[in-house]
């Protein structure tokens, strides 16, 4: 669909009229209401819990504690494991309970669940529960947690080290570093953020005793993967759990997970014999949603005497929080290192990442999931090399890019890039940004007393290939419509439109007759969920192949109708015909002839795995800083992206705009801050946590540069996270570029006015690296 053809999505009419169905919009008038008593401190032994006053409160139906869950046979909340080297440390996976038992490990951890006739009564009664705690000292900083004598978060995680992860070729890397003419080192802190989808986490849980079936109505990114995780906790087969969802109010990786409240309310529903609703508040989302980033990063780049990159090595410390979330291993390890040397021709590199337990909320996948950690590290390191070695920031990059003729490009860490044209993408960005005219613009800003900075950054990221085949089912209904079934779930991407687009293009059927169905009770369709920018790559491709299967079946039906051999039938624009004749029959006609039969003879499905592919791009930002106030404005932002073939341009542009702005949100202010003494989250509401507003990002220009992949039939590479992965390094570098002329050498984000102003004052006072949070040594 070209941009001009776009007149809205299939999902829009219900959403703009308030007729969408988000999790708490399902009608369960008979539901009881759950509320959770949460730990008011970050680290403590639970001495006793007394809920008698709450139970005696009028309208209270039940109270559940960790002991009740143990009695019900609850298992740990699950963690997705990833392959480890046989000789390496295995990750430690401490038990993660749905309600704390013995100990609380983070402020906000659920301790007691009170169920009452109304939410107000449940909230009132929760205040009547008394918990006696024995305080323990908390640790919230990852480096503090690694120190000898630090408070131990889990008895079975010695030294607070969940995992010492290692990727790449250490010996080969060290050998190349030994030959280097120059080694450039750079430290940065990729600070912690909170994803905040606009729909707070919530659920309605229902147990059907007759069917022995659990139904969870919750925001989701993939009903079946979420059901599998819930089933693990409950200790029942996956088939006994249905996650039901129609509209999901944002996800960004955070809504792919199972959470304690879902499992507790499912048990409550089973015990009470009625549905249980949990109307989760924003405060609870702040405290207990999976949080993101919080990586202390150190990178080293070895160069020869001509500025050619020889190798790279990294040491990072990731603050994983009090528990491992389902994606808490993957997003902090392989997702970081998969594109270990970016778009650069550096096949040999090494990274070590320590995953650390602290008394903070669990950290896991969030838009980019690890890739923005590496893109920021890499591009800030390369920028540093250009500065230290007095090289042109464009040429140092250009001279080290993987060339178009080097694909497939294999690295020693097991990653193989399939295709790309990094230099052409770079050139497009330079042209669009009027790169050469910058000095004039900088001088003009200076006349107005402003500091102008600009930066070019590249990025590349892996989109998540499927571990299991992603299935697409196409079913012709009795009412003449075509239903599409998949296990992915849109949380804003517009799958109803884009998947219908894919199928409509193959079959020539009107978009409005094609209906995507993803989160229905009883639906069993194979594959993963939405995440890792994978939906078009995987489910889109399966729908494309499934639609081709419809054509194949249609040819056989048409052959019978037209009394010809199937091999002689061609299909074009919705019509089957005998080649070289005017004898034809439309697909619509064939559908109608068999309308109402089940299964319809044209019903088809396709389930496939697709190879990992690599969206990439070059972004250029210009910013202007008012040194008197520290206020930074984005003057222009050019994003040139190779996301493979584009199916629906407007939706792709929307994903890029959203991703870039989300990245800008982190760069300019979003910051989850825990108090070092108390372990309390200091930024627990929208009043303390500055979400991006409409004034934050202006002057945005998005340019496609598709280099289609051959690894899936659509040639798509994925777009969901690219904007965020590109924005973090680009804006970081642009801000430092603006600050360098006044003497600032290091600047860790976020670039709040206060921090920018402080950086300038510190530099004036002879402390150019005052805004550097941490330093590490590669070891």
């Amino acid at each position, binding site marked *: 669909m070209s941009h001009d053809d776009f*007149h*809205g*999505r299939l*999902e*829009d*009419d219900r*959403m*703009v*009229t*308030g*007729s*969408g*169905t*988000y999790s*708490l*919009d399902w*009608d369960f008038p008979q539901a009881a209401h759950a509320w959770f008593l949460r730990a008011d401190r970050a680290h403590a032994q639970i001495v006793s819990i007394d809920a008698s006053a709450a139970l005696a409160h009028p309208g209270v139906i039940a109270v559940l504690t960790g002991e009740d869950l143990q009695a019900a046979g609850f298992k740990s909340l699950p963690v997705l494991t990833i392959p480890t080297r046989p000789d390496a440390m295995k990750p430690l996976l401490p038990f993660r309970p749905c309600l704390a038992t013995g100990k609380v490990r983070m402020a906000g951890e659920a301790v007691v669940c009170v169920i009452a006739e109304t939410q*107000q009564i449940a909230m009132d009664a929760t205040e009547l529960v008394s918990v006696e705690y024995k305080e323990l000292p908390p640790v919230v900083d990852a480096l503090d947690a690694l120190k000898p004598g630090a408070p131990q978060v889990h008895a079975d995680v010695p030294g607070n080290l969940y995992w010492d992860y290692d990727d790449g070729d250490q010996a080969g890397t060290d050998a190349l570093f030994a030959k280097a003419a120059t080694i450039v080192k750079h430290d940065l802190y990729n600070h912690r953020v909170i*994803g*905040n*989808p*606009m*729909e*707070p986490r919530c659920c309605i849980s229902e147990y059907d005793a007759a069917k022995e079936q659990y139904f969870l109505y919750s925001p989701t990114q993939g009903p079946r993967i979420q059901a599998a995780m819930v089933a693990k906790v409950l200790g029942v087969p996956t088939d006994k759990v249905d996650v039901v969802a129609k*509209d*999901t*109010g*944002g*996800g*960004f990786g955070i809504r792919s997970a199972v959470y304690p409240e879902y499992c507790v309310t499912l048990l409550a529903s089973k015990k009470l014999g009625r549905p249980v609703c949990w109307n989760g*508040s*924003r*405060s609870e989302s702040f405290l207990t949603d999976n949080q993101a980033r919080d990586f202390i990063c150190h990178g080293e780049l070895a160069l020869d005497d001509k500025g050619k990159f020889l190798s790279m090595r990294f040491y990072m410390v990731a603050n994983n929080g009090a528990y491992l979330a389902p994606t808490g291993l993957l997003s902090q390890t392989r997702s970081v290192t998969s594109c270990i040397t970016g778009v650069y021709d550096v096949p040999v590199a090494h990274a070590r990442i320590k995953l650390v337990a602290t008394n903070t909320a669990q950290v896991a996948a969030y838009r980019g999931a690890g890739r923005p950690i590496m893109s920021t590290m890499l591009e800030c390191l390369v920028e540093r090399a250009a500065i230290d070695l007095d090289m042109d920031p464009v040429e140092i990059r250009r001279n080290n890019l993987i060339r178009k003729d080097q694909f497939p490009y294999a690295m020693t860490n097991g990653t193989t890039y399939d295709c790309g044209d990094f230099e052409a993408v770079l050139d497009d960005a330079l042209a669009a940004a009027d790169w050469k005219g910058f000095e004039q613009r900088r001088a003009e800003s200076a006349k107005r007393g402003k500091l102008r900075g600009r930066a070019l950054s590249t990025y590349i990221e892996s989109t998540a290939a499927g571990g299991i085949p992603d299935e697409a089912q196409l079913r012709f209904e009795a009412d003449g419509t075509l239903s599409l079934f998949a296990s992915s779930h849109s*949380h*804003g*991407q*517009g799958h109803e439109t884009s998947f219908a687009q894919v199928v409509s293009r193959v079959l020539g059927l009107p978009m409005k007759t094609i209906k995507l169905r993803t989160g229905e009770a009883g639906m069993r369709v194979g594959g993963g969920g939405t995440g890792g920018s994978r939906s078009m790559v995987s489910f889109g491709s399966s729908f494309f192949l499934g639609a081709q299967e419809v054509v194949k079946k249609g040819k056989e039906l048409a052959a019978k109708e037209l009394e010809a051999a199937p091999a002689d039938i061609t299909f074009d624009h919705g019509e089957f015909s005998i080649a070289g004749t005017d004898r034809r029959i439309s697909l619509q006609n064939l559908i109608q002839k068999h309308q109402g039969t089940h299964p319809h003879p044209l019903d088809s499905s396709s389930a496939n795995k697709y190879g990992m592919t690599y969206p990439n791009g070059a972004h250029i930002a210009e910013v202007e800083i008012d040194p008197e106030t520290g206020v930074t404005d984005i003057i222009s932002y050019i994003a040139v992206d190779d996301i493979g073939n584009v199916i629906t341009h*407007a*939706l792709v*542009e*929307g994903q890029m*705009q*959203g*991703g*870039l*702005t*989300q990245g*800008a949100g982190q760069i300019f202010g979003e910051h989850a801050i825990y108090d070092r003494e108390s372990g309390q989250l200091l930024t627990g*509401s*929208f*009043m303390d946590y500055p*979400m*991006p*507003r*409409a*004034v*934050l*990002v*202006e002057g*945005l220009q998005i340019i496609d540069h598709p280099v289609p992949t051959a690894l899936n039939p659509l040639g798509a590479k994925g777009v969901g996270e690219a904007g965020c992965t590109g924005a973090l390094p680009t804006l970081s570098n642009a801000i430092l570029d603006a600050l360098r002329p006044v003497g600032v050498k290091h600047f860790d984000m976020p670039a709040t006015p206060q921090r920018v102003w402080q950086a300038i004052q510190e530099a004036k006072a002879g402390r150019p690296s005052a805004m550097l949070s941490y330093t590490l040594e590669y070891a």
Partner: protein
Amino acid sequence: MAVKVSMTVNGKSVSHEVEERTLLVSYIRETLRMTGTHVGCDTAQCGACTIHMNGRAVKSCNILAMQAEGASITTIEGVANADGTLHPMQAAFKEHHGLQCGFCTPGMVMSAIDLVKNFPDTTEQQIREQLDGNLCRCTGYHNIVKAIKAAAADPASAKAGV
């Protein structure tokens, strides 16, 4: 303590006994079961619950149902024509891809209608500033701004009112 509240919602008179502490948004969502108005926060920051009360955009999470006694309320469900034709602002959000997950959209549309009513010759900068009370996490606001600008320029907007 229960208290009786009466008001007009989307042109219809409604009256119920509610607890005194019931927020207007809870009354709309839970008592009236009109779920187009959303709750995205608990600090009156996000604007997902924006409705019109006596012709002004207000955050319905920040006001008690009692305070709306006798008021004329319009929610997102009352914005389109009875025949289902979208209000020009709704149509512009759709046309310009001004929504993704759609959760903030009802509040955005209600705020935007008020914005254009107050500033008929609005500028892009003014739209961006006026949207300060409405959070969107998906779109980066770019297409929301575009949609509001287009709706402001659409002569149908002035006629549509609300």
